[in-house]
């Protein structure tokens, strides 16, 4: 048996155990709730104008996707370490030739796989409802035009364009990708915090706070970089906040994706890069905190 100090197979073993562990916690019950919300949003408010109906469907669905991914990222990740520690499974795992960073990576990967699969499933459900709704809305509107006798090719083309822009496009899936990237950063953050925290509740609360601040981090950062603060204490405090929290706003392209803005590959690259930076950074810090943790 050859021993290697880094083994993707071991990490994958840990990750898949984590996924089943989380799935057995019934965490994916969220998916059902999500489907109900999407279908509800898709068929509620039939009186509004067609574009707005589709926008609302997307708003509600993306909102649910974001909430799902963030809640799972925070809660599931915060549970992992304390649970293994309480169940003492950590003793048996770490008494095998498993480096501690592999254990951490396995856990993180497990959460990411879970969130990723959850998002893909939800994306499929949501895309189906959106497509269905789009077809219905279009047929309805063209029917209305015909009834009024104004269904000129130009009018129909314009309607097609408006509805198409609000309907299902590839771009929509890039929005889901951005949501996934944000959730990954939050999961890495939660894992880092759980490496020094002493209770699950503490991890959840702190991660939640950092997540909220992270969404407003660009405001704080810009105020700091542009020297808006004159007070020294304000300056230090804002600098510290901007330094220790991630800029989660970077991933908030969804609003504009819903609006039909195209996600360029450069933008995807930048978001991926930012995510990688945070993941690597937080994993290194997690490792440093965890490597000498008393079990």
């Amino acid at each position, binding site marked *: 048996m050859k021993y290697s100090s880094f083994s993707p197979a071991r990490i994958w073993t840990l990750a898949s155990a984590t996924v089943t562990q989380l799935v057995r916690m019934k965490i994916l019950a969220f998916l059902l709730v999500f489907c109900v919300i999407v279908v509800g949003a898709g068929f509620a*408010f039939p009186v*509004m*104008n067609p574009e*707005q109906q589709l*926008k*609302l469907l*997307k*708003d*509600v669905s*993306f*909102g649910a996707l*974001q*909430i799902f991914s963030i809640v799972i990222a925070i809660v599931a990740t915060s549970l992992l370490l304390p649970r293994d520690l309480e169940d003492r499974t950590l003793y048996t795992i770490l008494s095998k030739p498993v480096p501690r960073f592999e254990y951490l990576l396995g856990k993180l990967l497990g959460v990411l796989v879970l969130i990723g699969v959850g998002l893909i499933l939800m994306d499929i459900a949501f895309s189906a409802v959106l497509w269905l709704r789009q077809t219905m809305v279009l047929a309805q509107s063209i029917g209305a035009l015909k009834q009024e006798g104004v269904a000129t090719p*130009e009018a129909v083309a314009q309607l097609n364009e408006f509805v198409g822009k609000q309907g299902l496009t590839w771009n929509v899936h890039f929005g889901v990708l951005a949501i996934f990237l*944000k959730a990954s950063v939050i999961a890495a953050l939660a894992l880092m915090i759980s490496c*020094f925290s002493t209770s699950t509740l503490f991890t959840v609360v702190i991660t939640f706070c950092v*997540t*909220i601040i992270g*969404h*407003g*981090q*660009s405001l704080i*950062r*810009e105020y700091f*970089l542009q020297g808006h603060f004159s007070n020294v204490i304000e300056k230090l405090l804002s600098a510290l906040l*901007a*330094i*220790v929290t*991630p*800029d*989660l*706003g*970077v*991933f*908030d*392209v*969804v*609003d*504009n*994706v*819903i*609006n039909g*803005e195209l*996600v*360029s590959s*450069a*933008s995807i690259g*930048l*978001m991926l*890069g*930012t995510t990688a*930076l*945070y993941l690597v*950074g937080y994993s*290194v*810090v997690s490792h*440093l*905190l965890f*490597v*000498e943790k008393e079990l």
Partner: protein
Amino acid sequence: MKRHLQALVVLLLLGSVKLPLEESVTQHLRAAKLLSKPIDLGIRESVGQMSFAAALGGLRSLIASITYLRAYRAWENIEWAKVDSLFQITTRLQPRYQNYWDEASWHMAYNAASSYLYNEDIEPMVRGKFYADYIQRGIDILNEGLRFLPDDARLWNALAEIYDRRVHDPKKAAECYLEVHRISHNDRYARFAGYQYAQTSDPELWQKAYTLLKTAYYKKQRQPSVIEQIKNLEDKLKLPLMQRIPEKRQALEQPQGMIRPTQ
């Protein structure tokens, strides 16, 4: 303990390195119109703390949808001031979504204005004032929207229609239609601009109208209305016969011809 210090150092180092990176990524994504400008802090009182936090947390579009629904409800209850203020919040949350501006102005310039105009409970003098005020409000909303979306054909078109149908200012309507044409390259709007210019009382603008319509004519857009309007303008501009379009010449040469004479 030593490791904890190392961890802190790494965290702070990473934090300081990432600041400029985050800043440039944000700028790039904003330039690509993927990220919105920072949210207007003044909106906090109007939407409430919870919604404001949610809007910060990447749910801005959803919150906008909710205020939109509230505005929709207010419209159903014919509460015009509320419709206006809720749409104001909605557009401030998502200024780059043209549909909100379009609908907000439509509610003001058409629905609210007409509703006041035909409200028997109000003094006739006041009614007229309200009518004009709400149309102006619709125009203001579109102009504000155009500050965020200067290249939005739909908003220009909406503005053109208000000038045409509500204010009866053909010169301004024509200018707006020309903007639509500039953006959409749809010749239909150049024609519309031509029609509007033709309705003014300024001979210089008639000339503009004539040029626009003749262009349309040469692009083989020869709907009866175009031809009629061109003939009309040729009369008004008193053009020599030889410069006129063939349809006109034919009509003059054989008055009993297939084509309906002008006037």
